[in-house]
């Protein structure tokens, strides 16, 4: 739990004084990932650096688990929190092992315990420990260095992580991948995280809640859903963009919206007459065809009436299959791209889990906007 109470930071004195952070009050609950979002110079990084006393408060109070940070020795305070920065700052004279071991060594851990921890973290981040531990930072790609930066901040298993654009320095493809990995790790570890970024997509993707800053003030502090549905002023709606309904789609996963497996699916191995019997007189279009329990495509009933002997003769393959963990944003994009409004949803084994249609997505977004509106009104 991190509590900010009337936190203010002024740089300089007299007429040249600059107020970087002004009267910020907010809480970060245990296990919550809060994103500090805003354009450069908005005070988000200053607030982060006040938290571990890399900067000193001008006024106000910051509490960690109910204890005022000013009552800590700053060195101990910093060792008790993970810290990672955009420039990564891996020490080039230390091996990967030495870099990750920095904080455990400062804390005086025994070497066997440090070794276990380094191996555990490297494995968790998908880097083979025996290959990477003795390498130097210069021998790693940017993406690998970012992972080591994250591993280093997690090394002593702190409850709190302070992250200043930790994925800012890598290309978009790798960034997406590291964000996904990081979300996976966070869902297991449940750290309390303050995460600075200026990237609205990153904020929406990672944040349990988002704090938007402008000119050193906290403008809005809400969940991404509320932030997108009801930006509290013009600055925020500009910042989140006019496509915020589309961005909202990125917040939901297919399994939250899909309908369960439909009643009418037909096996690829059925004869076309057998299949036609199942429909009776009703004029279905685009019926899902499965092989075993795996969807392989769809048939148009009119084709089925006219051609072939078996269902699989007229089956049309889906250009893509939708995984139940995909975001609605991905699905919507596929629907528009392939002009298909109804997709089967599969699990990681390729088995049919349900279906999702254009209408399902539309109804879901409308109901969410309604819920938030009513919630906000009450």
């Amino acid at each position, binding site marked *: 739990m991190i509590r900010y109470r009337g936190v203010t930071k002024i740089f300089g004195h007299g007429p040249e004084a600059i107020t970087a952070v002004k009267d910020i009050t907010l809480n970060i609950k245990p296990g919550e990932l809060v994103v500090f979002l805003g354009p450069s110079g908005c005070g988000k990084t200053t607030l982060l650096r006040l938290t571990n006393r890399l900067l000193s408060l001008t006024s106000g109070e910051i509490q960690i688990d109910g204890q005022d940070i000013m009552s800590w020795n700053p060195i101990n305070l910093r*060792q008790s929190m993970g810290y990672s920065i955009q*420039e990564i700052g891996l020490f080039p004279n230390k091996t990967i092992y030495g870099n990750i071991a920095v904080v455990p060594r*400062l804390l005086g851990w025994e070497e066997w315990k440090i070794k276990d921890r380094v191996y555990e973290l490297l494995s968790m981040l998908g880097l083979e420990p025996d290959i990477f531990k003795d390498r*130097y930072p210069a021998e790693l*790609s940017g993406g690998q260095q970012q992972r080591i930066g994250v591993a280093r901040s997690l090394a002593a298993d702190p409850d709190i992580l302070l992250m200043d654009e930790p994925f800012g320095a890598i290309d978009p493809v790798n960034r997406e991948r590291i964000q996904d990995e990081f979300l996976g790790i966070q869902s297991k570890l449940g750290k309390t995280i303050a995460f600075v970024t200026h990237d609205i997509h990153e904020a929406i993707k990672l944040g349990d809640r988002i704090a938007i800053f402008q000119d050193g003030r906290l403008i809005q502090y809400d969940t991404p859903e509320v932030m997108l549905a009801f930006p509290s002023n013009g600055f925020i709606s500009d910042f989140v963009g006019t496509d915020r309904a589309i961005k909202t789609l990125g917040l939901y996963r297919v399994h939250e919206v899909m309908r369960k497996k439909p009643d009418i699916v037909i096996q690829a191995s059925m004869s076309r007459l057998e299949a036609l019997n199942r429909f009776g007189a009703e004029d279905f279009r685009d019926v899902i065809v499965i092989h075993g329990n795996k969807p392989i495509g769809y048939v148009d009933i009119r084709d089925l009436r006219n051609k072939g002997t078996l269902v699989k003769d007229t089956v049309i393959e889906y250009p893509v299959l939708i995984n139940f963990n995909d975001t609605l944003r991905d699905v919507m994009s596929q629907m528009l791209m392939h002009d298909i409004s109804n997709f089967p949803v599969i699990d990681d084994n390729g088995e049919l889990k349900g279906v999702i249609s254009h209408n399902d997505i539309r109804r879901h977004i409308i109901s969410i906007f309604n819920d938030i509106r009513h919630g906000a009104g009450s």
Partner: protein
Amino acid sequence: MHIIIFIMKNAERCWLLTLDHISIVAISIFLASLIGIPTGIIISYNKTKAQKIINIANIFMTIPSIALFGLMLPLLSIVGYGLGKVPAIIALVLYSQLPIIRNTYIGIRNIPSELVEAANGLGMDRWTRLKEIEIPLAMPVIIAGLKNAAVMSIGIAAIAAYIGAGGLGVFIQQGIARAYDEMILAGAILVALLAIFVDCGMSLLEKILTPKGLGITANLGT
């Protein structure tokens, strides 16, 4: 040819004077680094103070060595050390300050700010940061400064023979007094060889003490 004969005939004396020369320089550089390296580190935390200290060290460099010996003579005579090795070593320590302080300062200042930021953010105190990050990373530059100081001191120590410090300058001084060309040349050549030898040795040391991870260029691929 006469020189080689001179050196061979006086091999033992050459050797002793060379050792004498080395000991003057070695003691000076040792004492100079005890003063210069900590000074360089301390001023790296304060840019304006740094400029002042470096300017002072610079002033010492502009004083001709023979003038500095002259200046120290009356001062050190008070305590009975006006001539000999003591004023020579003091002069060499003073001359060595500029390359040593300057290189230590530059070596530490040039460490990328994000490394200092990371070290602070992870909870290193100033001493740990210095020991684990700053000094190892600045080491090649610091050694280069010591190398400059050593090579320069070898030259100046030759002049210190005039105040009775000994060393290879004795050949040059006595050779001039006696108009003995081979002796002058022997002194000059041995001093030059010593300087080249020390320069190579220190370059090797610089290479050895460069942290391993610094010599590597990026090998990419995700």
